[in-house]
């Protein structure tokens, strides 16, 4: 074995970006269009939804008929490369705490398969502490971010409706698709249970917005990534046009090891290991932008120790890795007897629900802070592994074409049952805001490294009573809606205090945020209000790490807006020679 040599790229960049998801993709797009020379590092392979196709494949094109594997946890057609458990890239947890960490290793990251739920934060979501005394306020307000949300809406495209809701702001929306049958029934049932139902807000193009991207053709398969780019994936919508400027070099399969710094403590570039040849490389630039995901960016900072930054880079405050929080989640499924034996037609629609329920209550009257929204599902979906599973718990319970049958069975009678019950399912899931606590954190595990020798994260996160009470409230609401619409609950109806009312373990909802939070006080935050490190002015973090809190709004749209804002600030600062 020869000497360990680090191959330094001779090209000097203006900016090195780590990660190509929503935050990194937007940053690359803004910086490249401003004429800066950018190097974009991605820990996975190249990916182009127009070339790497699972969309519109038939169920039988998958030998496992769409079932999930460790390598595709959301099913065999899902667009994500990676998962909860990546070979050679472990993470650990403290004691009996739980954390599930989903990583997509590919150009565009998790935006290739995400739910496209594109919700702006509202004014209250930036000022939680002022409202209920919990957590902290952001150093910025809705008015600071609004112009960027407006531009993200127009640049990327999102459908929805202006409803004039105080904390679910209006935007620039494409027309939404009409509700499906079960969604009309949900709307009726939920409305009479006092729950507001409005059109979803999803970044899917119901109308074409430019020549590079097509319009939606309603296959409901956004999770497979769209070959005409009719939904938002960072790979197709941001990185690709950024590369077309000629100002961006993408280095795929590059696993960042450290942010390199000089004697003055300023960043000079990134060292990384190539997953292709396992050799060590470095790239240098005037500014470093981290967008590796909330936890990976924190890991990278904590692993970038130096004499000037002994506690890790940008971490004199000791907050890096802290305030880690995910959305709360709980769900319930049922069947709608009036949909048994239903007429068949194509009701695929877009990839996701056409309606949802934004938070509708006043917390002053509740025993938990902050809210949740409800996502709905159901209908005649594409058959995949698990189809018809558990028929024995349905076909003895309900009359089939007027006949009482014995549960279970086989033969022609059973085939009739499968046809009879198809498309009658209905599903609801709550996604709520957890409080970001200082004591919920990820830190470097002193004993464990990954297969590249990079120290890994150890998680220490626990739900508080607030999140558990929120889940309890979700379940009560779901039962009311199910009852009101005449549905029979089939799963998720029996949760109680023994299992925290079905509250998903932290990390499961894949909305992790808060680990490199922004703030005005450098002792209590890692970044200033422009996502720039207090301790190291030429380092920015533009992913979910910078969040102080996350409302009950899926975080992607805010990552995009904040990354746009930070990147334009970065361009200005470079022009002013402040960086």
């Amino acid at each position: 074995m020869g000497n360990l040599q680090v191959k330094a790229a001779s090209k000097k960049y203006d900016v090195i970006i780590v990660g190509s998801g929503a935050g990194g993709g937007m940053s690359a797009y803004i910086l490249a269009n401003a004429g800066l020379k950018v190097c974009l590092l991605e820990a996975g392979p190249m990916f182009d939804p127009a070339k790497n196709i699972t969309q519109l494949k038939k169920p039988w094109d998958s030998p496992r008929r769409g079932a999930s594997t460790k390598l595709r946890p959301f099913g065999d057609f899902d667009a994500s490369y990676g998962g909860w458990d990546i070979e050679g890239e472990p993470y650990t947890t403290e004691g009996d705490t739980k954390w599930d960490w989903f990583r997509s290793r590919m150009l565009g990251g998790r935006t290739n398969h995400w739910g496209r739920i594109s919700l702006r934060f509202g004014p209250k979501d930036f000022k939680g502490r002022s409202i209920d005394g919990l957590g902290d306020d952001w150093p910025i307000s809705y008015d600071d971010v609004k112009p960027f949300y407006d531009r993200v809406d127009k640049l990327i495209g999102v459908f929805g409706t202006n409803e004039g809701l105080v904390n679910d702001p209006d935007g620039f929306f494409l027309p939404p698709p009409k509700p499906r049958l079960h969604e009309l029934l949900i709307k009726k049932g939920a409305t009479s249970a006092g729950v507001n139902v409005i059109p979803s807000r999803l970044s899917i193009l119901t109308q074409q917005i430019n020549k590079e991207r097509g319009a939606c053709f309603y296959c409901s398969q956004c999770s497979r990534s769209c070959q005409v780019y009719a939904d938002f994936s960072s790979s197709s919508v941001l990185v690709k046009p950024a590369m077309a400027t000629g100002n961006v070099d993408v280095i795929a399969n590059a696993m960042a090891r450290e942010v390199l710094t000089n004697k003055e403590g300023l960043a000079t570039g990134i060292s990384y290991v190539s997953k292709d040849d396992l050799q060590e490389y470095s790239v240098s630039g005037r500014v470093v932008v981290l967008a590796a995901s909330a936890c990976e960016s924190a890991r990278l900072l904590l692993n970038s120790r130096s004499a000037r930054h002994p506690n890790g880079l940008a971490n004199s405050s000791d907050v890096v890795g802290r305030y880690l929080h995910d959305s709360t989640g709980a769900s319930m499924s049922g069947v709608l007897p009036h949909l048994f034996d239903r007429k068949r037609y194509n009701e695929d629609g877009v990839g996701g629900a056409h309606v949802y329920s934004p938070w509708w209550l006043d917390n002053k009257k509740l025993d938990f802070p902050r809210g949740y929204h409800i996502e709905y599902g159901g209908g005649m979906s594409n058959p995949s592994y698990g189809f018809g599973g558990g028929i024995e718990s349905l076909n003895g319970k309900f009359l089939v074409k007027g006949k009482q049958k014995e549960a279970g069975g086989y033969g022609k009678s059973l085939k009739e049952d499968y046809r009879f019950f198809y498309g009658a399912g209905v599903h609801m899931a709550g996604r709520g805001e957890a409080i970001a606590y200082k004591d919920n954190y990820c830190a470097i595990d002193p004993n464990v490294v990954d297969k590249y020798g990079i120290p890994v994260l150890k998680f220490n996160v626990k739900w508080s009573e607030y999140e558990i009470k929120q889940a309890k409230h979700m379940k009560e609401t779901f039962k009311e809606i199910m009852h009101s619409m005449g549905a029979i609950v089939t799963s998720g109806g029996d949760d109680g205090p023994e299992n925290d009312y079905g509250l998903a373990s932290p990390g499961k909802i894949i909305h992790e945020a808060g680990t490199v939070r922004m703030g005005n006080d450098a002792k209590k935050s890692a970044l200033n209000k422009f996502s720039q490190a207090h301790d190291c002015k030429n380092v920015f973090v533009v992913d979910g790490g910078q969040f102080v809190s996350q409302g009950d709004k899926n975080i992607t749209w805010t990552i995009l807006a904040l990354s746009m804002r930070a990147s334009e600030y970065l361009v200005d600062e470079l022009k002013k020679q402040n960086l």
Partner: protein
Amino acid sequence: MDRRKSLKAIALGTLSTGLLVDACKDSDKKVIEEKAIPESNVAGNLDRYPAEVEQYKKITSYTFFTAHEMATITLLADIIIPQDEISGSASDAKVPEFIEFIVKDMPDHQVPMRGGLKWLDIQCNKRFEKAFKDCSLSQQIEIVNEIAYPVKAKPEMKQGVAFFNRMRNLTASGFYTSEIGVADMGFKGNAPNQWNGVPDEVLKQYNLAYSEKELKECISFDVKK
């Protein structure tokens, strides 16, 4: 690319070699190290990453069930899903081959399937002095009737019930995700189209109507054919 062209291209399966490729030629030159995913031999040419190609090769490099077990699985699958006036049988839809694949892909099925098949043969042997596959149809149905109905099954048959539930579920998974099964179910989706809302006659059937607000704000398409 306009909508009509893109729909046509998708229908013809030519999209990936069409316009979109032209659009990325320039940018491709700028990629320092483009890492293409190797072509895989997975059915349907699904996009796969290298670890998946490896996994697929591993799974398909050996056979799990013996010929005796496969014959039993085939008989059971066709009892569960026989041919009827609408569609073919489980074996017409290659359900046994699917079950062979899936138990290797999901090892948790292996012991219950192998053990359940053995349990069934032992029961048949006690009663008819033959393995299940060598029993007459009426003997096979006699034993199936005792494990196919979870609520009324006798306590001593519960292990058989658990096996038959699993076998029923795997058969349904394999059948209704096959070309024959998808057609049987009448699934109309997974094809480019324009969603124009619930068909009028269905709205009528459920006494529903879109509201003025919905009709005004939602996208709609001309339905003339």
